[in-house]
């Protein structure tokens, strides 16, 4: 934070603070939020697609390349030791962030998509066979559908999807019915990217475990909004992307329980994942390196750790409470506009407001809002089955982060007014 910004935050202090949550001070940490778009202040409401980066993350990347850049796990020289230390420090930060039992349960991957593919390839191919079933839900992102579909096709297994109701909530009874003797794995999103629904993952995991079925949780949309404790959840795998939680693109985390990861074959072969190689035989490295072939995204991991430290410093519970308040405000304000229909009205929601305005196509909504400096996402949000469930081709989606304000929601409401004016 610049001195000026810090001073500004301190001066505004209690007047703008939300309890102890001073959103203006947080905004000052994000350089891009000071930008104007088309001559208007940026109103960034596309956080479910990717989040903006605080100065702390940008600085961590620059500092790494200016002061520590080297390859990890190999060199005997100073920089290599330092880079290795920082990279492994990032792993411990991710471990603490998820409350994993051990740092070797944290595998660095490119993002949620790669994490799920890793589990599908490694765990899936060795545990799922002909006639078996993988159970997901009707609100999954394509990244938690397609890897399982590919696996099932290869193995002669069946992919089942538990249905959702008109509010966009998982129908738990239907899920329980589909969780049968053939189910070998459950894949479920923690929070839906298209609808904002928060799934009862603890309850789902308990039920699945009572039938000896392991559970993978897609946490891409959860970690920016609430604290996650993988031991309390007792999930078997948990996956998230760095860039959605204020870190860089190209880095993400797969958490897996030690016992499962130990028993799984490697995902990719190459350097770093081996202990010894001859042309006859390779002995694989121990965890987590067995799953990290090749030079990893070192700066990405360090940047991600800076992001996790940043939000942990603010407090995930405070972030969750603040965002809940803004989402409630947005829900009330947007649903009060004539002709607006909300898609996704679950009782437990976080971060996402998907909507339609009369019969105006979301793409037109997106263009008109963009002219006012308001960034939202329009389309199917990589969740075509969700769109099909609601019999719509697309939605307009405003998605929140800790730096969004009620004033920005007011700007969104005015923007929607403009859409209605154009299409009157």
């Amino acid at each position, binding site marked *: 934070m610049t001195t000026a910004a810090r001073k500004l935050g301190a001066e505004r202090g209690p007047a703008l603070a939300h309890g102890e949550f001073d959103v203006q001070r947080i905004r000052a940490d994000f350089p891009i939020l000071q930008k104007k778009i088309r001559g208007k202040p940026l109103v960034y409401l596309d956080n479910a697609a990717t989040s903006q980066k605080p100065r702390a993350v940008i600085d961590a990347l620059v500092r790494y390349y200016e002061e520590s850049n080297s390859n990890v796990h190999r060199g005997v020289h100073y920089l290599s030791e330092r880079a290795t230390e920082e990279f492994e420090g990032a792993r411990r930060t991710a471990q603490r962030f998820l409350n994993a039992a051990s740092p070797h349960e944290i595998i660095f991957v490119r993002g949620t998509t790669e994490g799920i593919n890793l589990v599908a390839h490694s765990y899936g191919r060795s545990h799922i066979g002909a006639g078996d079933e993988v159970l997901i839900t009707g609100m999954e992102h394509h990244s938690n559908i397609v890897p399982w579909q590919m696996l099932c096709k290869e193995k002669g297994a069946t992919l089942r999807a538990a249905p959702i109701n008109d509010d966009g909530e998982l129908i738990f009874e239907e899920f329980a019915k589909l969780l049968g003797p053939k189910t070998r794995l459950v894949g479920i999103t923690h929070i839906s990217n298209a609808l904002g629904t928060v799934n009862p993952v603890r309850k789902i995991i308990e039920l699945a475990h009572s039938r000896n079925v392991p559970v993978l949780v897609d946490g891409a949309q959860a970690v920016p909004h609430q604290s996650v404790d993988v031991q309390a959840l007792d999930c078997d795998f948990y996956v998230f992307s760095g860039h959605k939680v204020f870190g860089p693109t190209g880095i993400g985390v797969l958490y897996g329980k030690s016992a499962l990861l130990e028993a799984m074959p490697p995902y990719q072969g190459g350097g770093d994942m081996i202990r010894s190689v001859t042309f006859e035989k390779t002995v694989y490295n121990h965890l987590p390196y067995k799953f990290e072939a090749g030079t990893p995204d070192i700066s990405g991991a360090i940047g991600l750790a800076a992001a996790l430290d940043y939000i942990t410093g603010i407090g995930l519970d405070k972030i969750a409470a603040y965002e809940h308040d803004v989402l409630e405000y947005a829900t009330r304000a947007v649903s009060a506009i004539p002709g607006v229909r909300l898609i996704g009205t679950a009782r437990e929601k976080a971060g996402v407001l998907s909507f339609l305005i009369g019969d105006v*196509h*979301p*793409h*037109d909504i997106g*263009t008109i809002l963009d*002219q006012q400096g308001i960034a939202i996402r329009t*389309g199917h949000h990589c969740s075509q089955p969700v769109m099909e469930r609601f019999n719509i081709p697309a939605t307009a989606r405003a998605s929140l982060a800790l730096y969004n304000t009620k004033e920005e929601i007011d700007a969104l409401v005015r923007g929607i007014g403009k859409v209605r004016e*154009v299409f009157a």
Partner: protein
Amino acid sequence: MSDLRDLYQDVILEHCKAPRNYREIPAADHKAEGFNPLCGDRFTVYLALDGDVIRDISFQGTGCAISKASASMMTQMLKGKTREEAEKLFGRFHDLVTGHAPASEEVELGKLAVFSGVSEFPVRVKCATLAWHTLQAALEGKQEAISTE
């Protein structure tokens, strides 16, 4: 906000609300489906030819205001035109929406000129040209749905 009005001209909004030739041609001798995966736009274009002349043309489907109005006005413009004239008009229209100088001045855009504002919105070019690409696919007798991606 003048840019916005350049894009959403009244004629475009009017065609979006009341698209022309929005129907199936049961005896169509050419038809094709076009799909824009980015926004989920999906149109079917139907054609009935008389030799080389487009005797009847229609469309159905869902899409944004730009893609729907473009499809509607395309059907209006092309009725009675030859295949070659249709191709030329598409070329001219494509130049218009992508902001390129027209390759040839001989083709009259007529009321399609209302789409000139699209060139200021590069991500919307696919919307404006979806119906035309679908028309091309129909004329070429392509069986698979075409995609703008």
